[in-house]
């Protein structure tokens, strides 16, 4: 029998366009093959520094996202009651006129009355700048409910962060600890990295209450009790200190452990560093028996003991305080085992393994370098221990200090930006002095004027807070107030409730972009929805008078907008992954990228970035108009990418600057810059010489390069901040010292949590112990195929997962006589949901969990109203309080980390009980079906996508 003749070498496509993926926050390089005007295939760009050709499930499913029936098609104006989903299609001119009228009035009367918050926005360098030019202090993206604990703890401790500014040295590490990661922003790099570890036989330990995904391939899974990672790390530190297994040389050279801390209880400088010559911190020289400038880089610093300062006060090296804390019996592995759920033997063994990996297998690279004190090093020394941590650490009310504990462990082992350890990605590290302070105090906000400075920053003194004279918040989200002094990413999760309550003040317009705040991005979702539709009984007006929302899809949030500005898909826009924002750099060097439109939109939609610039020009924002009053960037965002200058010579893109494209990072405008990017696969990547790739916080040549590039403001070394004096300054304020002190109700909280040395505390110290009635921790993970994406509506991805169940341990299943598929009620002190359960092995016995954001509201996303996402799928959000329980006469805090304001999603405690046969098999609570907005097409009942390509080939 003859085989059929096959054409095995048919042309794949008519055209290939390279761009940057936007199916999550990973931002891989992709190549989009186009055939007959349709997407034939999306593949990874093999040359791209992020993904080197690989692609995840989301990236490959981009076709279905681009052709989603849920795409909005035209601007919409609300005609029914808010939330009814009744809209009328309008022209862009009317939409922009309406928005301009609302916004112009706000700007002319009180810019505070605009709250502009963006969700999965990857153009924060633009959106933040626009908000600054508008003049409202109320701007942030979604970091406050995502991972600000990681970003802030990193930047306040090591000048960089797990978040997106570092990566483990996958090629050299021999021991890798992964804390609380199911999936992460760097989704493909982590997968590629784990493959390298496995290939080399490095040991991989995953610390996570749930064993899925990455944890499944770990050598060792430690199913820790949620919120106790910091306690486990403290016990590791205890063990390492006890045995003298710390890198003293590294600590003395690069950290502030030897600096003298004033011991002067009851006085205004207690706990601050003693400043000697030229206002520099000092050490105690063991040999000279006197204080000495810490920045000399010489001398023989003492690490323990109490010493008398020249002014007669007493002081101790920071290390002595650290030693006294962590050698305490309460951190013995035996003492913490019950709370962490990790046996003492395991903790001791992990400590021993860490010590062995770090100190018995030192890496020596033949890379000479010179440190910031001019000491030359013949070799680059490394310790092959690396760590990464993310959401499981971040989403607790002890996340900031827990993340600092992990950094402390790394510093003690000498494994920061060293070969084999955690490597920094330029433009990081940055010193706290190089980072901005937040703007938004009363004097920063003027009618019809730009905000004085950037919205988000890093307070180092109480006077940097955005509070009024009485110490009350200036921002609608209360970021940078005494409630959350280091809220470096804002607190988007508090905006709707605060605006509804008029606390600290009412607003006029809520303007949001790509943020599903009426659903899975809100805590206390049900009440949040009610707040969006609540009216003032007296005036009959909505409590939040205007809501403008921009998104590409008909999400749950769309129904709550008064004005919908339809955005494009990621394949229909110019975009920019800028060094000014969250770049795609690697440890080897800086990188940035653009998106180019692969298609023109076939609907009456516009890229949000173009719309913002248009609105800015209509509002007459001076940075967006010419002297003649015409739009300054008539070509929209593409125009802006090329021609906008943030500072002289600094623009959105770092590659091919200068008239001939001969300069990098800084340089004048290059009219052809975008073309150079397109020719290069839509990215720019500048690997640095080897000598600039390690110890960058202290590497003289790197610091000179970084200062020249504008990454840092001076070539001073970035001293590893083991003892964070910045925290102590706030504590002293709480003790009443200095001109800026917190209102009485905040004093205890600041005193407790602003400890300059990292420490562990149970999250319910912040949130209040819910008691034995709620014995189980409840948390969520995002599946790898939907992390940071809008994947739930995707025709292919939802076939992989269309609903979710609550996973419980077999022990919990037995206790409550629950079996696979049973319905159960899950109750927190805040709410109650009905869900299906599934027992499993790989989960901490005190924990239940589910996949997040699978549950959808019936009628949204162009899904059938009976789709499993809305019938069986559910959100845990209904159980999570946005405000901590009211205490009579006390300030009511949001459910957040007391230092950074990070949303404490994972501090949820619940109880579970088997549901009776009281109803039909659907998850509860139920919500009314939302009608699809006009113009949004009905979904087809079948798809033969791609059939046409075959016929034609």
């Amino acid at each position, binding site marked *: 029998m003859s085989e059929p003749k096959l054409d095995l070498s048919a042309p794949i496509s008519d055209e290939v366009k390279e761009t940057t993926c936007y199916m999550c926050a990973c931002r891989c390089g992709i190549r989009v093959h186009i055939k007959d005007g349709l997407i034939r295939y999306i593949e990874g760009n093999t040359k791209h520094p992020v993904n080197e050709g690989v692609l995840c499930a989301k990236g490959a499913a981009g076709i279905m996202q681009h052709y989603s029936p849920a795409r909005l098609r035209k601007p919409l104006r609300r005609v029914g009651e808010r939330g009814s989903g009744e809209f009328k299609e309008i022209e862009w001119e009317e939409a922009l006129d309406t928005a301009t009228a609302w916004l112009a009035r706000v700007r002319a009367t009180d810019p505070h009355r605009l709250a502009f918050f963006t969700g999965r926005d990857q153009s924060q360098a633009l959106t933040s700048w626009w908000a600054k030019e508008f003049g409202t202090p109320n701007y942030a993206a979604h970091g406050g409910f995502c991972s600000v604990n990681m970003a802030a703890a990193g930047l306040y401790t090591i000048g960089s962060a797990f978040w997106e500014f570092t990566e483990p040295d996958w090629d050299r590490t021999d021991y890798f600890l992964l804390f609380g990661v199911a999936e992460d922003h760097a989704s493909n790099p982590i997968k590629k990295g784990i493959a390298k570890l496995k290939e080399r036989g490095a040991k991989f330990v995953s610390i996570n209450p749930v064993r899925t995904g990455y944890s499944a391939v770990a050598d060792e899974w430690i199913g820790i009790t949620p919120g106790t990672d910091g306690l486990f790390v403290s016990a590791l530190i205890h063990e390492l200190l006890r045995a*003298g297994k710390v890198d003293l040389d590294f600590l003395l050279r690069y950290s502030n452990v030897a600096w003298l801390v004033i011991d002067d209880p009851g006085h205004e400088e207690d706990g601050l560093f003693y400043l000697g010559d030229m206002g520099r911190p000092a050490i105690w020289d063991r040999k000279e028996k006197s204080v000495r400038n810490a920045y000399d880089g010489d001398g023989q610093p003492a690490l323990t003991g109490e010493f008398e300062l020249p002014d007669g006060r007493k002081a101790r090296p920071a290390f002595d305080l650290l030693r006294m804390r962590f050698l305490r019996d309460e951190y013995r592995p035996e003492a913490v085992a019950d709370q962490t759920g990790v046996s003492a033997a395991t903790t001791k063994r992990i400590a021993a393994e860490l010590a062995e990996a770090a100190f018995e297998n030192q890496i020596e690279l033949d890379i000479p370098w010179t440190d910031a004190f001019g000491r030359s090093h013949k070799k680059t020394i490394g310790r092959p221990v690396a760590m990464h941590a993310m959401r499981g650490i971040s989403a607790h009310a002890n996340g900031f200090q827990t993340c600092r504990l992990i950094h402390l462990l790394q510093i003690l082992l000498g494994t920061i930006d060293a070969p084999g350890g955690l490597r920094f990605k330029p433009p990081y590290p940055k010193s706290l002095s190089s980072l901005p302070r937040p703007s938004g105090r009363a004097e920063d906000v003027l009618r019809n004027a730009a905000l004085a400075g950037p919205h988000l920053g890093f307070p180092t003194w109480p006077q940097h807070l955005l509070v009024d004279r009485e110490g009350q918040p200036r921002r609608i989200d209360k970021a940078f107030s005494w409630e959350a002094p280091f809220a470096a990413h804002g607190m988007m999760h508090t905006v709707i409730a605060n605006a509804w309550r008029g606390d600290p003040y009412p607003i006029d317009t809520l303007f949001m972009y790509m943020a599903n705040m009426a659903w899975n991005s809100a805590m206390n979702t049900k009440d949040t929805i009610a707040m969006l539709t609540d009216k003032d009984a007296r005036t009959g007006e909505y409590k939040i008078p205007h809501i403008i929302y921009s998104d590409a899809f008909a999400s749950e949030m769309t129904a709550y907008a008064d004005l919908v500005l339809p955005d494009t898909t990621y394949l229909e826009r110019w975009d920019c992954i800028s060094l000014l924002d969250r770049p795609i750099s690697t440890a080897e060097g800086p990188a940035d990228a653009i998106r180019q439109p692969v298609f023109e939109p076939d609907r009456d939609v516009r890229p949000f970035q173009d719309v913002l610039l248009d609105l800015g020009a209509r509002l007459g924002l001076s940075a967006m108009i010419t002297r003649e009053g015409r739009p300054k960037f008539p070509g929209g965002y593409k125009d802006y990418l090329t021609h906008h200058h943030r500072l002289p010579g600094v623009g959105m893109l770092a590659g091919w600057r200068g008239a001939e494209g001969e300069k990098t990072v800084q340089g004048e405008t290059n009219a052809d810059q975008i073309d150079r990017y397109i020719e290069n696969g839509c990215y720019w990547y500048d690997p640095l010489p080897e000598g600039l790739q390690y110890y960058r916080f202290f590497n003289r040549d790197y610091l000179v390069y970084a200062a020249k590039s504008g990454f840092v403001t001076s070539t001073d070394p970035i001293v590893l901040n083991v003892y964070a004096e910045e925290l102590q300054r706030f504590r002293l304020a709480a003790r009443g010292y200095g001109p800026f002190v917190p209102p009485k109700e905040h004093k205890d909280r600041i005193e407790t949590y602003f400890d300059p040395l990292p420490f562990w505390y149970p999250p319910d110290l912040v949130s209040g112990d819910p008691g034995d009635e709620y014995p189980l921790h409840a948390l969520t993970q995002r599946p790898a195929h939907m992390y940071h994406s809008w994947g739930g509506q995707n025709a292919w991805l939802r076939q992989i997962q269309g609903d979710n169940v609550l996973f419980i341990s077999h022990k919990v299943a037995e206790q409550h006589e629950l079996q696979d598929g049973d319905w159960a009620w899950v109750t927190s002190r805040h709410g109650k949901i009905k869900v299906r359960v599934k027992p499993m092995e790989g989960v901490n016995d005190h924990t239940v969990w589910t996949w997040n954001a699978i549950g959808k509201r019936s009628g949204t996303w162009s899904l059938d109203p009976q789709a499993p996402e809305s019938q069986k799928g559910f959100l845990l959000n209904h159980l999570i309080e946005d405000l901590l329980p009211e205490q009579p006469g006390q300030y009511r805090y949001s459910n957040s980390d007391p230092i950074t304001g990070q949303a404490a999603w994972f501090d949820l405690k619940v109880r579970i009980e088997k549901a009776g046969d009281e109803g039909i098999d659907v998850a509860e609570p139920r919500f009314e079906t939302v009608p699809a907005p006009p113009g949004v097409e009905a979904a087809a009942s079948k798809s033969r996508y*791609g059939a046409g390509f075959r016929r034609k080939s």
Partner: protein
Amino acid sequence: MTSLPKEPPTKRLGLVIDLDTCVGCHGCAVACKEWNTGGIAAPLSDVHPYGEDPSGAWLNRIHGYEVADGPSESRTVYFPKSCLHCENAPCVTVCPTGASYKRQDDGIVLVDEDKCIGCSLCAWACPYGARELDPVDGVMKKCTLCVDRIYNEHIPKESRVPACVASCPTSARHFGDLADPESDVSKLVAERSGFDLAPEQGCSPTNKYLPPRAKRMGAEVVNEELEEPAGGFLGWLDKALTQLGGD
């Protein structure tokens, strides 16, 4: 009934799938669907893609299991499954129309859709459950090993591998000639004790699976517990500082 090639193909092109590094991300499954819905076996249809019970034809699916390693230990395993391009392919011999066939040149098992009557006998015969009937077109779909990629001169040579292999972020998928003992895949199988899935079925599958590597649980560590240095912590510190200071 349909015959297998009279002489065994000289090449045995197939996949080697590493269960040690598969994290169950589904990247390969979607890349497969994406390539093949527009490729030589197009389309891979979907029914009710936005409806109550979405389903569709997939050539590669990932299954996740919890398995017991011992009395008290368990582990989570992700197991990607697609056609194994068997030497003794029962799906071919069972086919009443000659639609299912195994290529003489390279051993890839394909379906000639012009001859397929959608009777599903092949799917029943496959012990691995690796075939799926297209829910719209009613013809049998299965892994093509991206036969329209691996020989395609429009694709750069280094990328002429199946879509699942090109996309896999953890390098858990390898492609090559398993008849050639010198090929990278054959060496990998030899080194890592690659195994056949359900060998007792007698299908002699071409694809191999690599078992999870032995886990480093800490048995190799020199000391199970760190020892306190002589003189205690302060004694150690003093000595260490003295050594650093060189005095």
